[in-house]
């Protein structure tokens, strides 16, 4: 079978079309390197590789100096995708981990699509899930070519040749990968069906902690982010945006700005007024000198309190039915024992550490881009569409991203198109668009605000017999290119996921949804719908357990008899945390939550100490089942990270609007988690031979409800609003 066709068939990824001629793969990376001032040794080492590497397939190149370069089709934004994907390649290639380097693949949907999305992009915690087999096959294919080359050279049968730790050998003959690279690259690409992959018990790298991260240079400042890209003649752009969402420029006066030293251009674009200068500081000083009159006739002018008030009204009325089993309404109306809770969730900003930015250069109908690109296919199409050109005229060079948490995969390509619009105005000049923290925090694309109302009737044993759930909040997917995929019959799955397919055994269930249109742009935020649905589910179940006078873990286990995976993960966390047996200090309480998202299950047990009206999360014990943990250290790191991110929202994060103006501007008003509030985290990984599932997001949903449940254990109160406040 032609292996190239298999790429679309969700399998191998070996580009056989390339094998018949030798190809120096410098072209794939030269764009990135061009004119960019790399001072770091790590970056220049990769540059050297790019110049001599011989392509084995779309993902693997080997240079004569014995460096294996793995092209990474996903954005490295901290989740460890360089290391994870390279581990899969190196495992099947039997490379020495020390000889492996990574580089971002260019935007090329044909070669580098996310096999679960059908387009090139990173998100939904799918990077490993969709790449695990593909990367292993790419490694195995490259190994087969090395072996075939050695068999030719040594005139021995390929099957007698051994490969181990980066050496190819037969009897007393041996060669490095580098020595065989030239001959190997001339070998025909092997048929995917001829490749035998290792059994898990043969893994040397997968599942081990001995694969140090490959996104190097982050400890010494040499790693390159968008913020660091420098091109000859480049200008820095800032944009004065409308203070309100949907506002437009009515008029502006640029004379004072243009008089500021360093300012070169001021002009209007769709999203505001752009100021271009020789450096960032001059651009921002120029922006301060602008006088702009805004046209707010189409702007959102409501306050977030008005919006929540509307939602509270909506959850009292019937919505579109997302899921229905039995007749929950009927059962509830006849029950004498109903528990009802209303939950409220604010808008949340991603507040990734690197404010949004993007480098663009436009020449007529061609564009070249440098940034932490998370949606290669979507951005490439949007840029091509804006310029009225073919996608092949849009070249995207991907660099490290300083965090993302969902923000960089913008369905409208908002910040990317803003950069292109500016660059189009100054043809041929490279432009670095830089958002200040204030720009970033006030630009919207927030996790939507929601209100949930949940009611359940209880049977004689105190278990829920029917549950009715209503959710009100903006649809993330409506109006985006993914609406066709994610919205059906008025139900945006990301608004209800986590409450539909209810994890606990409740015979009758109804889930309804209201998706009002509001002028505040919204977007996915680490773990998407589960950011709110898991909180409601786990706080509600805990409230039922308290009402029944039951132990929260035992009560859950009683409702999870048909859910062996959540049962196992919950039991592991409880055992490791010594649930029910460990003595806690005076004033401490414990809470638990378990949730499944992105194919993985996570349980978290937290200890909280309360003093007066303040509390501190002291310790978290987490258990995760994510299938095979390709790199356990990174799995633990992601669980720690997901907990920190979710805890930040549990404790303090909140975007509010007053008359349409965002109240928060920077980290003094959007108060994210700092080291002094970070608990100890202990993560336990369930041993598994199942294919890897998500790791970046699933640790986030359980933390906020676990904290709320711990506070409930101490205070006896049920906490239904985020961020959590004791008073």
């Amino acid at each position: 079978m032609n292996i190239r066709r298999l790429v679309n068939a969700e399998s191998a990824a070996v580009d056989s079309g390339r094998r018949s001629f030798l190809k120096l793969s410098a072209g794939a990376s030269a764009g990135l390197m061009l004119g960019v001032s790399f001072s770091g040794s790590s970056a220049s080492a990769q540059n050297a590789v790019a110049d001599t590497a011989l392509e084995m397939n779309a993902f693997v190149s080997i240079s004569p100096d014995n460096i294996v370069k793995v092209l990474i089709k996903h954005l490295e934004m901290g989740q460890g995708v360089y290391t994870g994907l390279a581990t899969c390649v190196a495992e099947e290639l039997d490379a020495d981990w020390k000889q492996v380097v990574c580089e971002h693949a260019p935007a090329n949907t044909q070669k580098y699509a996310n096999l679960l999305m059908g387009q090139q992009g990173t998100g939904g915690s799918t990077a490993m899930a969709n790449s695990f087999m593909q990367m292993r096959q790419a490694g195995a294919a490259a190994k087969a070519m090395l072996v075939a080359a050695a068999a030719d050279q040594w005139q021995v049968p390929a099957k007698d040749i051994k490969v181990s730790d980066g050496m190819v050998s037969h009897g007393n003959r041996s060669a490095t990968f580098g020595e065989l690279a030239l001959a190997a690259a001339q070998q025909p690409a092997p048929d995917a069906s001829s490749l035998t992959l290792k059994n898990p018990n043969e893994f040397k790298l997968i599942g081990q902690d001995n694969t140090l991260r490959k996104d190097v240079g982050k400890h010494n400042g040499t790693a390159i982010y968008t913020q660091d890209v420098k091109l000859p003649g480049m200008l820095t752009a800032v944009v004065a945006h409308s203070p309100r969402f949907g506002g437009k420029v009515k008029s502006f006066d640029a004379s004072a700005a243009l008089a500021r030293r360093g300012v070169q251009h001021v002009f209007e674009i769709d999203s505001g007024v752009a100021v271009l200068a020789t450096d960032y500081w001059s651009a921002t000083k120029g922006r301060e000198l602008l006088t702009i009159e805004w046209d707010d006739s189409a702007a959102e002018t409501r306050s977030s309190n008005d919006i929540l008030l509307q939602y509270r009204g909506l959850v009292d009325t019937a919505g579109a039915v997302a899921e229905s089993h039995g007749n929950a309404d009927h059962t509830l109306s006849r029950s004498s024992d109903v528990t009802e809770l209303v939950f409220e969730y604010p808008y949340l900003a991603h507040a990734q550490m690197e404010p949004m930015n993007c480098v663009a250069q436009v020449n007529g109908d061609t564009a070249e881009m440098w940034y932490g690109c998370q949606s290669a296919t979507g951005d490439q199409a949007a840029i091509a569409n804006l310029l009225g050109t073919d996608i092949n005229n849009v070249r995207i060079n991907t660099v490290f991203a300083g965090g993302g948490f969902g923000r960089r995969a913008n369905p409208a390509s908002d910040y990317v198109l803003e950069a292109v619009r500016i660059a189009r105005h100054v043809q041929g000049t490279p432009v670095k668009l830089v958002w200040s923290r204030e720009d970033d925090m006030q630009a919207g694309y927030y996790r939507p605000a929601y209100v949930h109302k949940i009611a359940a009737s209880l049977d004689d044993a105190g278990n829920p017999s029917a549950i009715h759930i209503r959710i009100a909040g903006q649809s993330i997917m409506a109006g985006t290119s993914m609406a066709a995929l994610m919205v059906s019959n008025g139900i945006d799955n990301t608004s209800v996921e986590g409450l539909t397919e209810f994890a606990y055994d409740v015979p009758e269930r109804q889930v309804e949804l209201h998706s009002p249109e509001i002028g505040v742009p919204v977007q996915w935020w680490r773990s998407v719908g589960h950011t709110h649905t898991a909180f409601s589910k786990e706080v509600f179940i805990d409230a039922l357990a308290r009402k029944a006078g039951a132990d929260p873990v035992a009560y859950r286990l009683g409702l999870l008899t048909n859910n062996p995976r959540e049962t196992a993960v919950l039991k592991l966390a409880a055992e490791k945390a010594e649930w029910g047996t460990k003595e806690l200090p005076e004033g401490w309480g414990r809470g638990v939550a378990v949730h499944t998202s992105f194919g993985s299950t996570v349980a978290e047990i937290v200890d909280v100490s309360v003093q007066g009206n303040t509390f501190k999360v002291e310790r978290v014990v987490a258990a995760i089942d994510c299938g095979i943990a390709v790199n356990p250290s990174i799995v633990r790191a992601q669980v720690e990270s997901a907990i920190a991110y979710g805890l930040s929202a549990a404790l303090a994060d909140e975007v509010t609007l007053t008359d349409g103006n965002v109240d928060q501007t920077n980290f003094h008003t959007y108060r994210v988690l700092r080291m002094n509030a970070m608990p100890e985290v202990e993560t336990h990984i369930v041993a598994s031979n199942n294919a890897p599932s998500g790791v970046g997001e699933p640790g986030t949903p359980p933390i906020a409800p676990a904290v709320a449940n711990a506070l409930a254990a101490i205070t006896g109160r049920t906490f239904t609003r985020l961020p959590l406040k004791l008073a």
Partner: protein
Amino acid sequence: MAFLLTINGETHELDVEGDMPLLWVVRDHLNLTGTKFGCGLAQCGACTMHIDGVAARTCVLTVADSVGKNITTIEGLQSPQAMAVQQAWVQLQVPQCGYCQSGQVMSATALLEKNGNPTDADIDAAMSGNICRCGTYPRIKAGIKMAAAQFTNAAGAV
């Protein structure tokens, strides 16, 4: 206006406006991009450099006020404490996205140069001005302790 700055032991003459923060002088005019921009308001620590040996937020320190100071950026780190911190960072795989980590390394190094054996409370106090949205705090703490372990005898007395 021209300013003379001493950065990583070298003297640079810069002709910029006096209100320009040191961060932007270093990033945009000296092309040392290891130091990052995160907030511009002394809130996040991404821009941390050592000014006369003390960790400082350079997004709010003007070039005019930087004259005559001994300025060290991440590119100029040389002390044994800095080397130990960076080694621990690699070994414990502290960085995730890494964007905050130049600042974290600068703050951790400044802490260890003054206090070779910091307690958890010392670490919290020295490091809570450095935000990490990836939540690498537990590993930062472990990294500082690992680095400190090298100095409990010799340099710990510094």
